[in-house]
């Protein structure tokens, strides 16, 4: 799966879970850039990403991403 395609799909999941139609993510986006992305919504994002991509993350991975780019890389490594 192309990296850009993964980012596009992740963006759509964030828009859905955070109810924010205007959200545009890039590799450098962090939680500080997205108001509603906190520890609670993160869990729901993880669940939606696992379902959307048919993958499972480990406990360490869920805590490890510093930005969207690292999340996309992690998904890419499992596809």
């Amino acid at each position, binding site marked *: 799966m192309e990296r850009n395609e993964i980012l596009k799909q992740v963006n759509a999941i964030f828009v859905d879970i955070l109810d924010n139609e205007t959200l545009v993510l890039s590799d450098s986006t962090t939680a500080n850039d997205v108001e509603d992305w*906190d*520890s609670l919504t*993160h*869990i729901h994002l993880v*669940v939606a990403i*696992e379902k959307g991509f048919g993958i499972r*993350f480990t*406990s360490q991975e*869920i*805590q490890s991403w510093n930005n969207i780019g690292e999340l996309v890389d992690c998904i890419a490594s499992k596809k």
Partner: protein
Amino acid sequence: MNQEQTSTMNYIVEQISIKNQLHSKKITKNLAKFDEAYFKRANDFLKRYATLLQNEGKTLDYSIDCYLQMIADVNYESVQFLQTGEYTSKSFDEVNQRVYNNPSVMEYYMHGLLLSQFLWTHHYDILLYFNKIINQNAAHINNYLEVGGGHGLYISEAIGIIGDKANYDLVDISKSSLEIAKKMISNDKVNYMLTDVFEYFPENKYDFITMGEVLEHVEDPVSLLKKLHTLLSENGKLYITTPTNAPAIDHIYLFKNADDIRKVIHEAGFNIENEFCIYSEDMPVEKAEKYKVSMMYAGVLTKK
């Protein structure tokens, strides 16, 4: 609030923001709503906790790392819970092996829980509710029992309100939990008993029993409440708290909503005299339900 009160909390928040950006957003939001009274209580608690850490040769940084490890566990358990609709642990034996009989897990888990007491909004609201209930009933309490004392905060609060006239007993099944309670309770009035409450047969009945966040740790909460029923005097009161939808490494029994809890209470032979429910996240009810946010239930129960 004074410099000392803000500095310890500020340090904890600052370290959490460095180590876990997502979680720090929640903590920052939580602390913003608190008043001076909160920071005074938090500081009193943190002072006692700092002494405990010092006596064990540990630092606040160690405790913050323990807390974040516990948060990592909760996050992972939450993902599993949302995927399956169930808690991952199904039996007491499983949790015993995974947590209670696993010293390295118990170590960070106990310290994580201690720190969470004043970082999670709903813990403080529940403490204030408990304070109100004890104040209303203090005149009639001469024999007080707490089951599963943990950090010792509740029994300390009760002693502060009821005073020296009452007898105070604390029963806990976990040695490490009881040791922490002994260190956190700065009062020699408490009788500590390391035993399974099912094996506990005291001579006298209790006027007031407190059992905070224990029901979710057992396979059969009705049996546990029935046991407490036998320990309570005819006009005595039982104060319980337990959460709904709260995945954690040592939670077994899943209450999906407050009605699930009320059902268990009634089945065990109790009436609900008073109750208080609060979500663990400060947000509108619709949003809390959408995100399956855990709700803490507190109830004052009397015998039917």
